């Protein structure tokens, strides 16, 4: 468009995801509220949650997180790799991944990845954005159930093994659905407002009940279980943002 003749289109966009895969200060992935480490698995950057940002990551702090904890995760992973032995990769380990890929490649279903992804993106934007209500989130829970069901019937044109980027997009859509599910169920569960989680039906911050991390566990499609981890506050007390 020409800004001299037409108005510039402006719209909000999902810019950053707070939270993520919980890690220690060395980037080791932890799997529960007791900080149990998953040996050899590391996460850093936007995918990870070292718990640096709280409920609202402030400008440029993402880069600091990435540089500091990316380096620490790399150092620790290198140390781990030096002392670790190779595990045998058995069919038991490979089976699930292979099955997932073959199922998509051999499917004759009518659902298409791009169309399904567009519906997921639009509905998440409409119902699970920064400002949200229990009603909208509940609606999105149902939409996600339907999308996950339809995801089982996706098929792709490319059946090849070389640079099959269509297969990659199909796999990624499955992960997007799972992450969306963790996000929506956790947001529905948290009956307060905090940082970028603004529940219009619960506008106040509730430290008594919710000054804690949510750990979301997938039980099955449409069912998520929660555990909680205390927040390490350090020298700063949480305060209302009044400016």
């Amino acid at each position, binding site marked *: *468009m020409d800004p001299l003749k037409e108005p510039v289109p402006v719209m909000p966009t999902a810019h950053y995801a707070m939270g993520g895969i919980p890690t220690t200060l060395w980037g080791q992935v932890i799997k529960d509220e007791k900080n149990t480490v998953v040996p050899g698995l590391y996460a850093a950057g936007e995918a990870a949650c070292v718990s640096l940002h709280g409920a609202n990551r402030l400008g440029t702090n993402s880069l600091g997180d990435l540089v500091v904890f990316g380096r620490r995760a790399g150092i620790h992973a290198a140390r781990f790799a030096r002392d670790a032995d190779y595990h045998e990769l058995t069919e038991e380990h490979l089976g699930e991944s292979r099955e997932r890929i073959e199922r998509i490649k051999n499917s004759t279903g009518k659902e298409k990845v*791009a*169309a399904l992804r567009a519906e997921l993106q639009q509905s998440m934007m409409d119902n699970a954005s920064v400002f949200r209500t229990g009603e909208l989130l509940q609606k999105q829970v149902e939409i996600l159930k339907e999308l996950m069901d339809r995801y089982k019937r996706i098929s*792709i*044109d*490319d059946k*090849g*093994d070389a*640079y*099959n980027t269509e297969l990659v997009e199909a796999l990624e859509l499955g992960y997007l659905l799972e992450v969306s599910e963790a996000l929506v169920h956790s947001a529905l569960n948290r009956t307060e407002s905090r940082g970028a989680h603004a529940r219009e039906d619960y506008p106040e911050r509730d430290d008594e009940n919710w000054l804690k991390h949510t750990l979301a566990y997938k039980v099955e499609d449409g069912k998520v279980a929660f555990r909680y981890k205390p927040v390490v506050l350090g020298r700063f007390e949480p305060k209302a943002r009044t400016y």
Partner: protein
Amino acid sequence: MQVTLKILRFDPAKDKKPRWETYQVEAEPTDRVLDLLHKVKWYQDGSLAFRRSCGHGICGSDAMLINGKNRLACKTLVKDLGSVITVEPIRGLPVEKDLIVDMEPFFAAYRAVKPYLINDEPPPQRERLQSPEERARFDQGTKCILCASCTTSCPVFWVNGTYIGPAAIVQAHRFIFDSRDRGKRERFKALGSGSGVWRCRTAYNCTEACPREIPVTQLIEEVKRAILFDSF
């Protein structure tokens, strides 16, 4: 508007040589070529393969030969091309599939110039200081996004794939002219060799192809001079 999009395709499992495939796509004049490729991949033919990542000209993944010129698909608008658009893979690197080429020879050349700060002197208490003028000396090279538009537009590279190529020389320039760096002699070994800077015939294709407007040919000439004057 209706756009006729002709894409040079190649599937290693089926094709002996590349073949043209034509698609009709409904597009806005302000759509980018990347949008057209997505429309084909998502709604017409999912088997089309191309690389892209950030989608706004900074990751360097989607350099392609578009209407005969190397450009980034994410920065090239339909209105600047017209209603018939041809897309081919960048030249001089082996095609893996459709618009995806094997970038390994390109990155081997990049590694050969040691594109990192070399300085064994004990580090000072704080930073290695640099004046604004010293920083400005190598500023142009820092804009490189390693998209390979320059190297794969170079006629010398097309006929001699061992030529280190413009992108690697730009990267070398970025460190050779950095006041904090002490590694220029190490870099001159690769740059002064038979496959180094002296292969350049100043065709200027690289400068025209660069989507970051780096004066590539000028930087290559500065590296040639640095090697020349270093020997006296």
